[in-house]
């Protein structure tokens, strides 16, 4: 039984049809690689799953139940976490503050409930440790490298018992060593039975970790198959349109 299913999802932006009756399904513990040229509609798809905006038509089914997300928090409450392409970080806050943004830990202070700095630093430090990242909880995000920023965004997605993590181009702007770290992390998520949707332009990344690959072109699905039944050459052809569909 699929964990998350999109059925005939379409999305119009004015005259632009960004998604045209797209179907997608993903199982627990599965890594689905989503590929396609710029403007194919990948980010739009992620944003619909994450509750940023509703689809123009079609339905979203999570655990056999149809869901309607009106805001990103609602998707998050149902266990759908996102690592955004632009990472959605506040540069002026610390790494820990970003990890806990919108769900701060608090402690009692007389009659008040105040931010629990030490608990958040400790928990964020532990998450960075698990990601084998050198990111320090107290550092400001403004001073961080691309890879450290990535770790902050991923740590955020790991904060709760998420069931599916959507990653939009997580390896686009980071160093080679850090790409390997991110791929390791994806494997670790999969081992914990979490579903991962990985959007990437990098063929080697997708073929290294994905179980399935789905290719989109101009808002439509042109292929959806097991990674072992495909090849980088075929996927490249599908992306460019040299191969019509597979």
């Amino acid at each position, binding site marked *: 039984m699929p964990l998350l299913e999109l059925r005939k999802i379409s999305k119009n932006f004015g005259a632009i049809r960004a998604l045209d009756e797209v179907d997608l399904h993903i199982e627990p513990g599965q890594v689905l690689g989503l590929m396609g040229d710029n403007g194919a509609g990948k980010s739009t798809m992620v944003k619909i799953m994450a509750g940023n905006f509703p689809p123009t038509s079609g339905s979203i089914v999570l655990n056999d139940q149809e869901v309607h997300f009106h805001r990103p928090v609602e998707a*998050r409450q149902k266990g759908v976490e996102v690592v955004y392409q632009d990472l959605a*970080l*506040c540069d002026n806050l610390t790494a820990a*503050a970003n990890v806990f943004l919108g769900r701060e830990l608090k402690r009692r*202070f007389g009659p008040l409930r105040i931010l629990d700095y030490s608990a958040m630093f400790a928990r964020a430090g532990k998450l960075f440790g698990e990601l084998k990242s050198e990111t320090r909880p107290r550092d400001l995000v403004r001073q961080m490298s691309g890879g450290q920023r990535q770790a902050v965004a991923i740590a955020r997605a790991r904060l709760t018992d998420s069931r599916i993590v959507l990653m939009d181009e997580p390896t686009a702007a980071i*160093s080679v060593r850090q790409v390997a770290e991110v791929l390791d992390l994806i494997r670790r998520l999969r081992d914990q039975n979490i579903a991962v949707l990985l959007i990437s332009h990098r063929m080697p990344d997708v073929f290294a970790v994905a179980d399935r690959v789905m290719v989109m072109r101009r808002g439509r699905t042109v292929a959806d198959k097991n990674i072992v039944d495909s090849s980088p050459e075929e996927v490249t052809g599908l992306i460019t349109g040299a191969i019509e569909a597979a």
Partner: protein
Amino acid sequence: MAQDVETQASVAIEDVLQRKEATWWQGLLSSQPFWVTVAVLAIAVTMGFVNSNFLSTGNFFNITRNFSFIAVMAVGMTTVIITGGIDLSVGSILGMVAMVSAVTISNGFPMEVAVAAGILTSLAVGFVNGVLIAYVRLNPFIVTLGMLSIARSLTLVLTGATPVTLRRVGEEADRFRNLLAGDPFGVAMPVWVLIALTAIVAFLLRYSAWGRYVYAIGGNEQAARLNGVPVDQVKVSVYMLSGLTAGFSGLLVLAWAGSALSNFGQTWELRVIASTVIGGANLMGGVGSAYGGVIGAALIEVIRNSLLLAGVNTFWQGTFVGLFILFAVLLERVRSRG
């Protein structure tokens, strides 16, 4: 491939640049409020040597009271500026609140009613600002510029530009003045209000989720929204707080002056904004502190007072204050590069 070489290089650079964790004194030395505090103390000590009047009890009392009127508003303004907004209407709100309360008292209502009327007026104006900015998504500069004009005009409409005095209008007016213009333990009431307000807002900014959200909105509003921060509500709240602090100042100025004039607070918004900027707030949002706004206001007042005592033509005051604003912004620029 070329890209891979580039990213390899960035690995090496990261390994070299192993930054150490900043110590607390490094944090202090890179904080603008700290340096402004040093400047205020340096000027005060110098003036104390040069002019014996400066540190006299009377002058100290005057300085602290005068700057409190501005500093109280700077505390509210700081929260607005941290979110990346601006509130140009605070001077007009001050004038309106002073007038509303004066009219209420002089019409025989108890002082509690007058204070409540003033406070509610300030909150209502702040609420309108906030809703237009957060929900109607209008530009904060434009909204509060409009409100600057509207609130001032309504103040004039209320009384036809005639001053409303609190002198010899009855017991309630005297009670109002004794309380808000008093000096418990030898410190002017506005200073007590300022201390309490600064402590509360500084605490909230640091220890409440609300405070965290204020900074997050100024840092990256879109990110805050995506993470479930109630951006619109928080924005309304900071404009209401800014209005409220202007209302506090309005009541304090009214009690001190003993009557309400329709031009109370005119152009004060500029001094309030200047105070917050000198105290380290960044008009782009994301940076600032309650104490910074207060110490910025203190610096402006100390400069004004020093020039006055030194016998410098008062026309020069604006130049000095302006130079300090530019200096503060340059300092900010240098630090953010460093």
